[in-house]
Protein backbone atom coordinates (compact mmCIF):
# COMPACT_ATOMS: atom_id res chain seq x y z
CA UNK A 1 0.00 0.00 0.00
CA UNK A 2 2.78 2.35 1.09
CA UNK A 3 4.93 1.35 -1.88
CA UNK A 4 2.12 2.00 -4.30
CA UNK A 5 1.64 5.47 -2.80
CA UNK A 6 5.34 6.26 -3.28
CA UNK A 7 5.22 5.03 -6.87
CA UNK A 8 2.14 7.14 -7.57
CA UNK A 9 3.80 10.17 -6.02
CA UNK A 10 6.96 9.64 -8.05
CA UNK A 11 4.94 9.21 -11.24
CA UNK A 12 3.07 12.45 -10.53
CA UNK A 13 6.32 14.34 -9.87
CA UNK A 14 7.84 12.93 -13.04
CA UNK A 15 4.78 14.08 -15.00
CA UNK A 16 5.00 17.65 -13.72
CA UNK A 17 8.75 17.77 -14.21
CA UNK A 18 8.44 16.61 -17.81
CA UNK A 19 5.52 19.01 -18.44
CA UNK A 20 7.50 21.97 -17.17
CA UNK A 21 10.38 21.13 -19.50
CA UNK A 22 8.26 20.92 -22.67
CA UNK A 23 9.89 23.45 -25.07
CA UNK A 24 6.50 24.66 -26.36
CA UNK A 25 5.67 26.02 -22.93
CA UNK A 26 9.14 27.47 -22.40
CA UNK A 27 9.03 29.35 -25.74
CA UNK A 28 6.34 31.94 -25.02
CA UNK A 29 7.69 32.57 -21.52
CA UNK A 30 11.22 33.11 -22.74
CA UNK A 31 9.93 35.10 -25.68
CA UNK A 32 8.05 37.41 -23.34
CA UNK A 33 11.16 37.86 -21.20
CA UNK A 34 13.17 38.72 -24.31
CA UNK A 35 10.41 41.13 -25.47
CA UNK A 36 10.67 42.94 -22.15
CA UNK A 37 14.46 42.78 -21.86
CA UNK A 38 14.92 44.22 -25.34
CA UNK A 39 12.31 46.91 -24.62
CA UNK A 40 10.30 46.01 -27.73
CA UNK A 41 7.34 47.67 -26.03
CA UNK A 42 8.92 51.08 -26.62
CA UNK A 43 7.91 50.77 -30.26
CA UNK A 44 5.25 48.04 -30.22
CA UNK A 45 2.08 48.03 -28.11
CA UNK A 46 1.62 44.47 -26.82
CA UNK A 47 -1.53 44.88 -24.77
CA UNK A 48 -4.93 45.76 -26.18
CA UNK A 49 -7.26 47.39 -26.73
CA UNK A 50 -6.27 49.99 -29.28
CA UNK A 51 -5.33 53.28 -27.62
CA UNK A 52 -5.02 55.75 -30.47
CA UNK A 53 -7.84 58.28 -30.65
CA UNK A 54 -6.37 61.03 -32.79
CA UNK A 55 -3.99 61.41 -35.71
CA UNK A 56 -1.42 62.79 -33.25
CA UNK A 57 -1.69 59.56 -31.21
CA UNK A 58 -1.00 57.49 -34.32
CA UNK A 59 1.89 59.67 -35.45
CA UNK A 60 3.48 59.39 -32.00
CA UNK A 61 3.80 55.62 -32.44
CA UNK A 62 7.18 54.28 -33.50
CA UNK A 63 6.03 50.92 -34.84
CA UNK A 64 3.00 48.78 -35.54
CA UNK A 65 1.02 47.50 -32.57
CA UNK A 66 1.45 43.82 -31.77
CA UNK A 67 -1.35 43.23 -29.30
CA UNK A 68 -3.13 41.10 -31.90
CA UNK A 69 0.03 39.70 -33.53
CA UNK A 70 -0.99 36.10 -32.87
CA UNK A 71 -4.18 36.62 -34.86
CA UNK A 72 -2.53 38.65 -37.62
CA UNK A 73 0.64 36.77 -38.49
CA UNK A 74 1.65 33.25 -39.32
CA UNK A 75 4.07 31.74 -36.81
CA UNK A 76 6.56 30.54 -39.41
CA UNK A 77 6.72 34.02 -40.89
CA UNK A 78 7.44 35.61 -37.49
CA UNK A 79 10.16 33.08 -36.73
CA UNK A 80 11.83 33.75 -40.06
CA UNK A 81 11.33 37.51 -40.09
CA UNK A 82 12.57 38.13 -36.54
CA UNK A 83 15.86 36.42 -37.34
CA UNK A 84 16.11 38.02 -40.77
CA UNK A 85 14.02 41.21 -40.75
CA UNK A 86 13.36 42.64 -44.19
CA UNK A 87 11.18 45.71 -44.79
CA UNK A 88 7.48 45.07 -45.26
CA UNK A 89 6.69 48.75 -45.61
CA UNK A 90 8.55 50.52 -48.40
CA UNK A 91 8.55 53.68 -46.25
CA UNK A 92 9.58 54.32 -42.67
CA UNK A 93 6.70 53.86 -40.22
CA UNK A 94 4.50 56.99 -40.14
CA UNK A 95 6.56 58.72 -42.81
CA UNK A 96 5.60 59.66 -46.35
CA UNK A 97 9.03 60.85 -47.36
CA UNK A 98 11.65 58.59 -45.77
CA UNK A 99 12.53 55.19 -47.13
CA UNK A 100 12.29 52.31 -44.68
CA UNK A 101 15.75 52.28 -43.06
CA UNK A 102 15.59 48.48 -42.67
CA UNK A 103 17.15 48.74 -39.23
CA UNK A 104 14.85 46.51 -37.17
CA UNK A 105 16.87 44.58 -34.56
CA UNK A 106 17.77 41.07 -35.63
CA UNK A 107 17.41 38.12 -33.26
CA UNK A 108 19.30 34.84 -33.08
CA UNK A 109 17.27 31.98 -34.53
CA UNK A 110 16.45 30.36 -31.15
CA UNK A 111 15.45 33.71 -29.70
CA UNK A 112 13.30 34.46 -32.74
CA UNK A 113 11.48 31.15 -32.25
CA UNK A 114 10.74 32.01 -28.61
CA UNK A 115 9.69 35.54 -29.49
CA UNK A 116 7.39 34.28 -32.25
CA UNK A 117 5.88 31.80 -29.79
CA UNK A 118 5.18 34.67 -27.40
CA UNK A 119 3.73 36.91 -30.11
CA UNK A 120 1.47 34.08 -31.24
CA UNK A 121 -0.12 34.13 -27.78
CA UNK A 122 -1.28 37.72 -28.39
CA UNK A 123 -4.67 36.94 -29.86
CA UNK A 124 -7.75 39.02 -30.54
CA UNK A 125 -11.16 37.57 -29.73
CA UNK A 126 -12.48 39.54 -32.70
CA UNK A 127 -10.69 37.32 -35.22
CA UNK A 128 -12.75 34.23 -35.93
CA UNK A 129 -10.80 31.17 -37.02
CA UNK A 130 -11.79 29.63 -40.33
CA UNK A 131 -13.90 32.54 -41.58
CA UNK A 132 -11.83 32.88 -44.76
CA UNK A 133 -10.00 30.36 -46.92
CA UNK A 134 -7.15 32.02 -48.86
CA UNK A 135 -7.54 31.66 -52.61
CA UNK A 136 -7.19 33.57 -55.81
CA UNK A 137 -10.76 34.42 -56.82
CA UNK A 138 -12.14 36.70 -59.54
CA UNK A 139 -14.42 38.73 -57.24
CA UNK A 140 -11.67 39.47 -54.75
CA UNK A 141 -9.24 40.30 -57.55
CA UNK A 142 -11.80 42.66 -59.14
CA UNK A 143 -12.21 44.56 -55.86
CA UNK A 144 -8.46 44.71 -55.29
CA UNK A 145 -7.66 45.90 -58.80
CA UNK A 146 -10.75 47.64 -60.19
CA UNK A 147 -13.42 48.47 -57.63
CA UNK A 148 -11.25 49.87 -54.84
CA UNK A 149 -7.77 49.84 -56.38
CA UNK A 150 -6.09 48.60 -53.19
CA UNK A 151 -2.82 48.43 -55.10
CA UNK A 152 -2.89 52.23 -55.11
CA UNK A 153 -1.32 52.13 -51.63
CA UNK A 154 -0.14 48.51 -51.33
CA UNK A 155 2.70 47.27 -53.46
CA UNK A 156 2.17 43.85 -55.04
CA UNK A 157 4.17 41.67 -57.40
CA UNK A 158 2.69 41.17 -60.84
CA UNK A 159 4.43 38.70 -63.16
CA UNK A 160 7.65 39.13 -61.21
CA UNK A 161 7.52 42.93 -61.22
CA UNK A 162 6.69 45.16 -58.29
CA UNK A 163 3.73 47.48 -58.89
CA UNK A 164 1.53 49.81 -56.88
CA UNK A 165 1.83 52.51 -54.25
CA UNK A 166 4.26 52.78 -51.39
CA UNK A 167 2.40 54.30 -48.45
CA UNK A 168 0.93 51.07 -47.07
CA UNK A 169 2.55 47.79 -46.11
CA UNK A 170 3.46 45.79 -49.22
CA UNK A 171 1.24 42.80 -49.89
CA UNK A 172 3.79 40.82 -51.84
CA UNK A 173 4.07 37.50 -50.02
CA UNK A 174 0.94 38.17 -47.93
CA UNK A 175 0.03 34.48 -48.17
CA UNK A 176 3.10 33.59 -46.13
CA UNK A 177 2.72 36.48 -43.70
CA UNK A 178 -0.93 37.15 -42.92
CA UNK A 179 -3.80 35.17 -41.50
CA UNK A 180 -6.74 35.70 -43.91
CA UNK A 181 -9.17 35.58 -40.97
CA UNK A 182 -7.38 38.60 -39.55
CA UNK A 183 -7.55 40.45 -42.88
CA UNK A 184 -11.31 39.95 -42.90
CA UNK A 185 -11.67 41.05 -39.26
CA UNK A 186 -9.42 44.08 -39.86
CA UNK A 187 -11.51 45.15 -42.85
CA UNK A 188 -14.89 44.60 -41.20
CA UNK A 189 -14.02 45.90 -37.71
CA UNK A 190 -11.37 48.55 -38.33
CA UNK A 191 -12.18 50.57 -35.21
CA UNK A 192 -11.27 47.62 -32.98
CA UNK A 193 -7.85 47.00 -34.48
CA UNK A 194 -6.81 50.48 -35.54
CA UNK A 195 -9.29 53.30 -34.90
CA UNK A 196 -7.01 55.90 -36.49
CA UNK A 197 -5.15 54.86 -39.61
CA UNK A 198 -4.38 56.33 -42.98
CA UNK A 199 -6.29 53.57 -44.77
CA UNK A 200 -9.96 54.47 -45.18
CA UNK A 201 -12.75 52.56 -43.44
CA UNK A 202 -14.37 50.51 -46.24
CA UNK A 203 -17.33 49.22 -44.26
CA UNK A 204 -20.46 50.17 -46.17
CA UNK A 205 -18.51 50.53 -49.41
CA UNK A 206 -17.65 46.84 -49.67
CA UNK A 207 -20.28 44.28 -48.67
CA UNK A 208 -19.54 41.55 -46.15
CA UNK A 209 -19.42 38.90 -48.88
CA UNK A 210 -17.02 41.09 -50.88
CA UNK A 211 -14.87 41.58 -47.76
CA UNK A 212 -14.52 37.79 -47.55
CA UNK A 213 -13.62 37.49 -51.24
CA UNK A 214 -11.11 40.32 -50.91
CA UNK A 215 -9.56 38.84 -47.75
CA UNK A 216 -9.27 35.45 -49.45
CA UNK A 217 -7.59 37.09 -52.45
CA UNK A 218 -5.13 39.14 -50.37
CA UNK A 219 -4.49 36.15 -48.11
CA UNK A 220 -3.47 34.19 -51.20
CA UNK A 221 -1.07 36.75 -52.69
CA UNK A 222 2.46 35.50 -53.40
Amino acid at each position, binding site marked *: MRVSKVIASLALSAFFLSASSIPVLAGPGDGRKAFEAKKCGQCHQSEGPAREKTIKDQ*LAKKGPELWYAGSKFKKEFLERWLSDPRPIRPLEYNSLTKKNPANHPKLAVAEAVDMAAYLMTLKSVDVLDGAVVPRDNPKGRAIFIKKQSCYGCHEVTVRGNK*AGGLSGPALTGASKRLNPDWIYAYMTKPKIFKPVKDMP*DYTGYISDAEMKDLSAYVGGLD
Partner: protein
Amino acid sequence: MTRDIMGKKALLAVVAVLTFFAGAGTTSALAATAEENYRFYCAQCHGLEGRGDGPNATENQPVSPRDHTSAKEMEKLTDEDIINSITDGGTATSKSSLMPPFGKTLSRSEISELKGLLRKLCKCKGKWLGRQGVLLKKRSDGKYLRQSGLDT
Protein backbone atom coordinates in the same frame (compact mmCIF):
# COMPACT_ATOMS: atom_id res chain seq x y z
CA MET B 1 -46.21 91.73 -23.18
CA THR B 2 -45.19 89.16 -20.55
CA ARG B 3 -46.30 86.51 -22.96
CA ASP B 4 -44.07 88.05 -25.63
CA ILE B 5 -41.05 88.03 -23.32
CA MET B 6 -41.76 84.44 -22.28
CA GLY B 7 -42.07 83.53 -25.94
CA LYS B 8 -38.75 85.18 -26.79
CA LYS B 9 -37.04 83.44 -23.85
CA ALA B 10 -38.43 80.09 -24.96
CA LEU B 11 -37.29 80.77 -28.52
CA LEU B 12 -33.80 81.69 -27.30
CA ALA B 13 -33.64 78.52 -25.24
CA VAL B 14 -34.63 76.42 -28.26
CA VAL B 15 -32.03 78.19 -30.42
CA ALA B 16 -29.35 77.63 -27.74
CA VAL B 17 -30.17 73.93 -27.51
CA LEU B 18 -30.25 73.55 -31.28
CA THR B 19 -26.94 75.42 -31.62
CA PHE B 20 -25.37 73.14 -29.01
CA PHE B 21 -26.47 69.97 -30.76
CA ALA B 22 -25.60 71.30 -34.19
CA GLY B 23 -22.13 72.10 -32.88
CA ALA B 24 -21.78 68.73 -31.23
CA GLY B 25 -22.63 67.03 -34.49
CA THR B 26 -20.11 68.87 -36.59
CA THR B 27 -17.11 69.33 -34.34
CA SER B 28 -16.36 66.30 -32.25
CA ALA B 29 -13.51 66.50 -29.74
CA LEU B 30 -11.52 64.08 -31.87
CA ALA B 31 -11.96 65.95 -35.14
CA ALA B 32 -8.69 66.97 -36.76
CA THR B 33 -7.96 70.17 -38.63
CA ALA B 34 -8.13 70.12 -42.42
CA GLU B 35 -4.34 70.45 -42.57
CA GLU B 36 -3.84 67.47 -40.24
CA ASN B 37 -6.28 65.35 -42.24
CA TYR B 38 -4.69 66.38 -45.52
CA ARG B 39 -1.19 65.46 -44.39
CA PHE B 40 -2.36 62.16 -42.90
CA TYR B 41 -4.77 60.90 -45.57
CA CYS B 42 -4.52 62.88 -48.81
CA ALA B 43 -0.75 63.39 -48.90
CA GLN B 44 -0.18 59.67 -49.45
CA CYS B 45 -1.13 60.25 -53.08
CA HIS B 46 -1.37 64.02 -53.52
CA GLY B 47 1.83 64.89 -51.67
CA LEU B 48 2.42 67.00 -48.58
CA GLU B 49 2.27 70.18 -50.65
CA GLY B 50 -0.65 68.97 -52.77
CA ARG B 51 1.27 68.79 -56.04
CA GLY B 52 0.16 65.26 -56.85
CA ASP B 53 3.53 63.81 -55.97
CA GLY B 54 2.89 61.63 -52.91
CA PRO B 55 4.65 58.29 -52.44
CA ASN B 56 1.80 56.45 -54.15
CA ALA B 57 2.28 58.44 -57.36
CA THR B 58 4.60 55.79 -58.73
CA GLU B 59 5.39 55.41 -62.42
CA ASN B 60 3.40 52.22 -62.76
CA GLN B 61 0.06 53.69 -61.60
CA PRO B 62 -2.49 54.02 -64.43
CA VAL B 63 -3.37 57.62 -63.51
CA SER B 64 -1.59 60.36 -61.64
CA PRO B 65 -3.09 61.93 -58.51
CA ARG B 66 -4.62 65.34 -59.13
CA ASP B 67 -2.37 68.34 -58.54
CA HIS B 68 -4.35 70.32 -55.98
CA THR B 69 -2.27 73.41 -56.56
CA SER B 70 -3.28 73.58 -60.22
CA ALA B 71 -6.05 76.15 -60.67
CA LYS B 72 -6.51 74.94 -64.23
CA GLU B 73 -7.30 71.40 -63.03
CA MET B 74 -9.23 72.29 -59.90
CA GLU B 75 -11.47 74.86 -61.59
CA LYS B 76 -13.02 71.99 -63.54
CA LEU B 77 -14.52 70.65 -60.32
CA THR B 78 -17.48 72.09 -58.46
CA ASP B 79 -17.34 72.15 -54.68
CA GLU B 80 -19.92 69.39 -54.80
CA ASP B 81 -17.65 67.28 -57.03
CA ILE B 82 -14.84 67.61 -54.49
CA ILE B 83 -17.06 66.70 -51.55
CA ASN B 84 -18.58 63.73 -53.41
CA SER B 85 -15.19 62.50 -54.49
CA ILE B 86 -13.74 62.64 -50.97
CA THR B 87 -16.86 61.05 -49.51
CA ASP B 88 -17.51 58.23 -51.97
CA GLY B 89 -14.25 57.99 -53.90
CA GLY B 90 -13.26 58.81 -57.45
CA THR B 91 -15.92 56.63 -59.01
CA ALA B 92 -18.61 58.90 -57.50
CA THR B 93 -17.52 61.57 -59.97
CA SER B 94 -16.70 59.15 -62.81
CA LYS B 95 -13.00 59.34 -62.00
CA SER B 96 -10.49 56.68 -61.01
CA SER B 97 -11.15 54.22 -58.20
CA LEU B 98 -7.59 54.96 -57.10
CA MET B 99 -9.21 57.82 -55.17
CA PRO B 100 -10.69 55.92 -52.19
CA PRO B 101 -13.88 56.80 -50.25
CA PHE B 102 -13.47 58.62 -46.94
CA GLY B 103 -17.15 58.94 -46.03
CA LYS B 104 -16.77 56.41 -43.19
CA THR B 105 -13.44 57.81 -42.05
CA LEU B 106 -14.02 61.56 -41.93
CA SER B 107 -17.05 63.49 -40.70
CA ARG B 108 -19.07 65.67 -43.07
CA SER B 109 -17.64 68.80 -41.54
CA GLU B 110 -14.07 67.48 -41.88
CA ILE B 111 -14.73 66.74 -45.56
CA SER B 112 -16.22 70.19 -46.05
CA GLU B 113 -13.17 71.75 -44.41
CA LEU B 114 -10.90 69.68 -46.65
CA LYS B 115 -12.77 71.07 -49.65
CA GLY B 116 -12.03 74.54 -48.32
CA LEU B 117 -8.35 73.66 -47.97
CA LEU B 118 -8.23 72.42 -51.57
CA ARG B 119 -9.68 75.72 -52.74
CA LYS B 120 -6.94 77.49 -50.81
CA LEU B 121 -4.28 75.27 -52.37
CA CYS B 122 -5.45 75.95 -55.92
CA LYS B 123 -6.39 79.56 -55.18
CA CYS B 124 -9.43 78.96 -57.33
CA LYS B 125 -13.16 78.48 -57.24
CA GLY B 126 -15.21 75.74 -58.76
CA LYS B 127 -16.78 75.70 -62.17
CA TRP B 128 -20.24 77.17 -62.60
CA LEU B 129 -23.06 75.22 -61.04
CA GLY B 130 -25.88 74.13 -63.29
CA ARG B 131 -29.23 74.91 -61.66
CA GLN B 132 -32.51 74.58 -63.49
CA GLY B 133 -30.71 74.83 -66.78
CA VAL B 134 -29.01 78.09 -65.85
CA LEU B 135 -25.32 78.37 -65.12
CA LEU B 136 -24.86 80.02 -61.75
CA LYS B 137 -21.99 80.77 -59.44
CA LYS B 138 -22.45 81.54 -55.76
CA ARG B 139 -20.74 84.71 -54.61
CA SER B 140 -19.32 85.36 -51.16
CA ASP B 141 -22.30 87.61 -50.37
CA GLY B 142 -24.66 84.70 -50.95
CA LYS B 143 -26.04 86.02 -54.24
CA TYR B 144 -25.87 83.99 -57.42
CA LEU B 145 -24.10 85.35 -60.44
CA ARG B 146 -25.61 84.37 -63.77
CA GLN B 147 -23.67 84.31 -66.95
CA SER B 148 -25.74 87.28 -68.05
CA GLY B 149 -25.66 89.16 -64.76
CA LEU B 150 -26.93 89.02 -61.19
CA ASP B 151 -29.73 86.72 -60.13
CA THR B 152 -30.66 87.21 -56.51
